[in-house]
């Protein structure tokens, strides 16, 4: 589903990602772990070309979604980003109503059919496990929601445009344990319909929610395997040292 072949990425002269080869299966949760600055977020952002927005960066190698090189000149980046939803560390709802936040992507996409939009908003909020909490206040400002609810609203907003891939960059690190638990349960539920890639500093979270885990260090993908294997019997000493807290 998602694949990279000999990917290198540079911020100016800094070699941030080194020869990354990976195959991420569809309808699964893949977690990337590693110390700060190891390149995991940079790698995640390759899949919706968010790094294109950063000046003086350079990519070599191939980055594919469903076999298509997403960095090919024929690829329309806005279409790519519709297929590849993203959720960030801090909830970032728009200064609009709850309903309009979820409907936003559809309206930008030129859809104006009210009943279609209403149906999609409801479906997306249900998929994001938020519907029951907000169905009676859809016209209220999104800022009235708690942090955890705002993050699920952002997930609903990402789902509304029917992506096939959801990228999550530390989606629960700014949330309390109960909200975190709801997001984790949601990720479990969503994987039957979406391919989810998540960056997390929380190793227990990676262990709990992912099917596969990749460990990054100094821009290299040190180990990538089934999560059970990584957390029970990693192949590389560096991985073992990191997950057991002996790193450094």
């Amino acid at each position, binding site marked *: 589903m998602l694949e990279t072949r000999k990917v290198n990425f540079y911020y100016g002269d800094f070699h941030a990602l080194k020869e990354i080869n990976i195959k991420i299966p569809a309808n699964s949760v893949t977690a990337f772990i590693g110390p700060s600055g190891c390149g995991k977020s940079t790698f995640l952002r390759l899949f919706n070309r968010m790094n294109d927005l950063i000046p003086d960066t350079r990519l070599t190698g191939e980055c594919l979604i469903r076999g298509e090189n997403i960095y090919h000149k024929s690829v329309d980046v806005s279409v790519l980003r519709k297929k590849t939803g993203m959720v960030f560390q801090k909830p970032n709802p728009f200064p609009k109503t709850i309903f309009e936040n979820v409907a936003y992507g559809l309206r930008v996409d030129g859809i104006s059919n009210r009943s279609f939009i209403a149906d999609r908003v409801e479906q997306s909020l249900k998929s994001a496990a938020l519907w029951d909490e907000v169905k009676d206040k859809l016209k209220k400002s999104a800022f009235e929601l708690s942090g955890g609810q705002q993050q699920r609203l952002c997930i609903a907003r990402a789902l509304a445009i029917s992506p096939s891939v959801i990228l999550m960059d530390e989606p629960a690190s700014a949330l309390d344990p109960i909200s975190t*638990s709801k997001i*984790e*349960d949601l990720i*479990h539920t969503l994987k039957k319909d979406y391919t989810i890639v998540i960056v997390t500093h929380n190793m*227990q979270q990676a*262990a*709990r*929610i992912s099917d596969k885990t990749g460990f990054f260090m100094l821009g290299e993908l040190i180990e990538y395997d089934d*999560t*059970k294997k990584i*957390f*029970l019997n990693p192949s590389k000493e560096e991985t073992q040292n990191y997950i057991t807290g002996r790193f450094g």
Partner: protein
Amino acid sequence: MKHTEKELVLLKDEVSKMWKLVYSQLEKAKQAYLANDVNVAREVVSREKRVNSFELRIDSDCENFIALYSPVAIDLRLVLSMMKISVTLERIGDFAEGIAKYVIKEANSPELDELKKDLQTETMFNTVIEMLSESFLALDTENTKLAGKILARDETVDEIYSESFNIIANAISNGKITPQQGVRIIPVVRKIERVGDHCSNIVEEIVFYIDAKVLKHSK
């Protein structure tokens, strides 16, 4: 239900399945022993591998759960107790197999029937089978009030067992059985007694899981 809770339910289900298999093994070992039924005994021996597979699977499930979910409090106690219970069930399965193997060797010795009655092995069997069944009920219903009752039953088994050596020695000295037959039946009685001990261990693990109390070595 949360994902971690679902995983724990699956783990408990797996242990329940193993429990039912071991219970059936013990029932059949009793049946084979009392009726000198070699066919049933062979059935027990052939099913022993399934018991071992359960233990390996539950071990692996518990290891994975600890590695992936870092359980604490009641979840941690549940996983630890399931690991120990599966090891104990496997040992009970081994005892059932050992008894079945004895039956296969000694089936053509009707002179042992009277000794079996004198040894009260049927009562021992019935008691340990009840202990196993009630301990399963205690886990299934998370009811530790049954613990005292189950542990008390083990004393009945121990009392019968403590009499068995004199009974076997008398049977040998009276010429009712050969010394070899006497030597061979001692481990059978010992195995039934050990099943009682293991059932007590299971109950202790259930109390640890549910009430966070350590009964082990508390006598």
